[in-house]
C-alpha cells in the first residue's frame, strides 16, 4: 500500500516536501493511524504526528487525508485511493510534518466562553433539567475539538482571527441551548457583527468532514435565528 506524506522539519528542511512510503503488510481493517505508527516504528522514527486514544474520542489525530479532513484512527486505509496522500490540517501554521499550531483554534474556542454560566445561587443538589431539555444538547456536546471542521472551512482560512469557525460556534450553541445556562443574551451579543458568526456562508464543509457526525452549520443557523428573533 502506497503513501505520500507531507514532511517538514524546520530544524533541517528549507521547505516542505512529500515523501513516499510503502507498506507491504496491511492487516484487514487497518486504520490510517496504525499505518502511520507502523511507518514511524519500522521505517522513519522522525515522522511526527499527534495521537492518543486511537478510537476517535480524544481528537488528537486530525489530518488531511486525500484532500479531506478526518481522524487517522477511524479512517480505514482500505477505503482510500492510493497513493494515500496525508497532509497536515490546512489553514493553520505547520509546526512539523502533520502537526499544526492550534493556538488560534483554541483561542477562538475560549472566546465563546465555553462554560456554563449560572447567576442564581446554586442548589445543594443538581440543577433540574428534563430529558427533552437535555436532548437539545445532543449533537452539540460531543465535539472533540479535533479542528477537522474549522480547518476545512474557507471562511476560517481567510479570517481565522476574526471568524470564530464552526468548532467554536458549535460550542457557543451548546451553551445557548443549555436550559441551565443564564447568559444567552450576553452570548448572542458577543457574536454580533459581520465576522465572528456571520462569516459563515453555509458552505457546509464542516458538516461533511466532522468525524463525530455533528452539524455545526445547523448550530450556526440556530444561533442566527435566535439573533434575528431577538432583533425583532
Amino acid at each position, binding site marked *: 500500500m502506497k503513501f505520500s506524506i507531507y514532511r517538514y522539519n524546520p530544524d533541517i528542511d528549507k521547505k516542505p516536501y512529500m515523501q513516499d512510503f510503502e507498506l507491504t503488510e496491511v492487516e484487514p481493517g487497518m486504520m490510517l493511524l496504525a499505518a502511520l505508527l507502523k511507518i514511524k516504528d519500522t521505517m522513519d522514527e522522525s515522522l511526527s504526528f499527534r495521537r492518543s*486514544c486511537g478510537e476517535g474520542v*480524544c*481528537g488528537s489525530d486530525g489530518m488531511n487525508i486525500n484532500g479531506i479532513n478526518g481522524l487517522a484512527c477511524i479512517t480505514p486505509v482500505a477505503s482510500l485511493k492510493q497513493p494515500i496522500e496525508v497532509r497536515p490540517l490546512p489553514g493553520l501554521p505547520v509546526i512539523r510534518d502533520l502537526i499544526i499550531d492550534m493556538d488560534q483554534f483554541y483561542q477562538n474556542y475560549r472566546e465563546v466562553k465555553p462554560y456554563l454560566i449560572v447567576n442564581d445561587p446554586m442548589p445543594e443538589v*443538581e440543577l433540574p*433539567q428534563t430529558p427533552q431539555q*437535555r436532548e437539545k444538547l445532543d449533537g452539540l456536546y460531543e465535539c472533540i475539538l479535533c479542528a477537522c471542521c474549522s480547518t476545512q472551512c474557507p471562511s476560517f482560512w481567510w479570517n481565522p482571527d476574526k471568524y470564530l469557525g464552526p468548532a467554536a460556534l458549535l460550542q457557543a450553541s451548546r451553551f445557548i441551548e*443549555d436550559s441551565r445556562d443564564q447568559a444567552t443574551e450576553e452570548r448572542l451579543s458577543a457574536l454580533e457583527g459581520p465576522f465572528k458568526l456571520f462569516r459563515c456562508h453555509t458552505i457546509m464543509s464542516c458538516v461533511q468532514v466532522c468525524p463525530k457526525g455533528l452539524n455545526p452549520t445547523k448550530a450556526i443557523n440556530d444561533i442566527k435565528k435566535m439573533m434575528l428573533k431577538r432583533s425583532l
Partner: protein
Amino acid sequence: MPDIPIRQFDSLIIGAGGGGLRAALHLSSADASVAVVSKVFPTRSHTVAAQGGMNAALANVLPDNWHWHMFDTVKGSDYLGDQDAIEYMCRAAPRAVYELEHFGVPFSRMDNGTIYQRPFGGQSQNFGGDQAARTCAAADRTGHAILHSLYQQNIRAKTHFFDEYFAVDLLKDEQGCVLGALAFNIHNGEPVIIEAKTTLLATGGAGQLFRTTTNALINTGDGMGMALRAGVPLQDMEFFQFHPTGIAGRGMLITEGARGEGGYLVNADGERLMERYAPKAKDLASRDVVSRAIATEVREGRGCGPNKDHVMLKLDHLGEAVIQKRLPGIRQTCITFLGIDPAEAPVPVFPTAHYTMGGIPTNRQGQVVIPVKDTPEEPVPGLYAAGECACVSVHGANRLGGNSLLDILVFGRAAAGHIIDYLAENRYHRKMDSNSLESALNRMQRWDRTGNGDGESVSVLRDELKAVMENHCSVFRNEEVLSEGVNKVEQIAERFKHARIDDRSSVFNTARVEALELENLVGVALATIHSAYARQESRGAHSRIDYTERDDINWMRHSLYSLGGGVDYKPVRTKPISVDSFPPKARVY
C-alpha cells in the same frame, strides 16, 4: 546551576486529566497560582475515553446510600482497599457529582429532571442484596463530558496551562522536600524548571504495559516512573484490571454500561455463561470475576469464532432505540472497527488490559506517603498524587466500574484541599538542590547526544515489553510464567540502557518523547511483575493458578516495590473513619 529558565508557582500539577483538572480548579478558585503541565492538550487526556459513568449513592433510580456503596467497594476490592479512604470517597460522592453538574456536565436525565443512573457491576442495595443503580451517566460518554466541562471551568478560572510540555523528573532539596519538576516544551525542545511549593502527580495509568489494551497511547505511567526515580515505592502494582469487554483482538472498550443496560455474554454454545460463575449478579458481577469467567470459557474450548478465542456480548435484544439513546458511542465504535451494529448482531469481546489499581501510595488527603524507619506512611513534604497514578487505596485488588471517575474527582479535590493548607504554612519557595536537577537534565539530554546508544531502537524494545507483559502477567498467572517474566523484563530494563533514537531534532521530537515514556513504562513493568511474582495468593485481579485461594493471614497487606530494592509490605487500613470495619468474607456474586 545550568542556565535554564525558571518559572515559579504556588502549585504544580502534572497531568491534565480529570484528577489534575479537578485539583487545578479547586486551587485556582482558592487564589493559588497553579501551573498545569500536560504532554497533550488537556482534552486529549485519557479521562475523555471513560464511558459508563461515575458512582454516587444519589438514589435517583433505586434506593441507595453511601454505606452500601462503601460495602460494595470494600468487597469489590477483595478486602485490600483501605476502609478509611473508601468511606471518605463514598460519602463525598454525591457532592462530587452535584459539583460536576454545576460545572455544566450534560448528564442524562430522569423524567423528573434528576440525573440518570444505571446499574453497574458489583453494586448492591442493603449490603449485598438486590442490584443497585448507582452510576451517573452522560449517555456512554461520561468521561468526555466530565473532562471537557472541567477544562472549560479551568478556562473560566484562568488556570495557567503548559500544554504539550513533558515533565521529566521531580526536583527536590537536600531534606527531600519536593520543589517542582524539570519539564521541556515539546514544541521546541527547550527545558524549563517549574518551581512550586507543592507538586501533584496526576498522570494517569500505565495501560501501555500491555499489547492489547483499552488505554490511549499516552498512558505510559509517567508519574509512577518519576516517583520511582525519586525514591518513592509503588504500591499494589500486581493488581492490574483486565476489563471483561474489550473488542476481541483490538482492545477498544465496550462499557460495562452495556451489561448495565441489559446486555449479556454468551459462549460458543449460545449459553449465558455468567449464570454459572455468578448465579445472582450474573453479568454484573465484579470485573475480575467476569474476566476470569471469559478466559476460562475460552481455555475450556467454549470460545467463539474460528479460533475459539473470544465470547460474544449480546445487545440486539435491547432494541435500536435504547442502544442509540444510552450507548451511542459504543455503537459507533463497533460499526467503525468491526463493521457490526450491536443493535443487529452480537459483539466479539475478550478481557483487555484496562486499569492500574496500584500506584503511588497516598493517604486520603492525597499526600504521597512512604515507609520511614518504623512508620509505614510518612508524608513526603510537598508531594501529592491523585487519580489512576495514585493508590489511596480505594480499589484494592479490584476496582468497581464507575469508581475511577469518582476516585479522580474526590481525591483530586481532596489533594487540592490539603495543598491549600500546606501553602498557608509554607509561604516561601525553598532552595533547590543542584544534584537533583543535574540527574533530571542528564536523563533528558541523553537522547540529544549523537550515538546516544548503540543498542536497539525504542520501538523494538517497547513492543517486546508489551508482549512479555501480556504473555507473563495476564488474567491467570503462575510461578513459572511469572519468574520467566521477571527475567525478561529485567533484561529489557538492562537493554534499555543502550537503547537509541536517531532523531535529534529540537522541534516536536516525538521519538524523544517516546523514549522518555518507555523509560517510565519499564519502571512500572518491573514494579508490576516483581510484585505479581512475590504475591503467593489469589486476590481480586491477581489470579494465581498455583495459589488459588485468598490468604488473609499472610497476604492481606499492601505491597511496595522500590526501584532496586525489591518488594516490601505494609498493613491494610481496615478501620474506617466513623463506621464499623467490614471484615473479610468469602466473595460471592
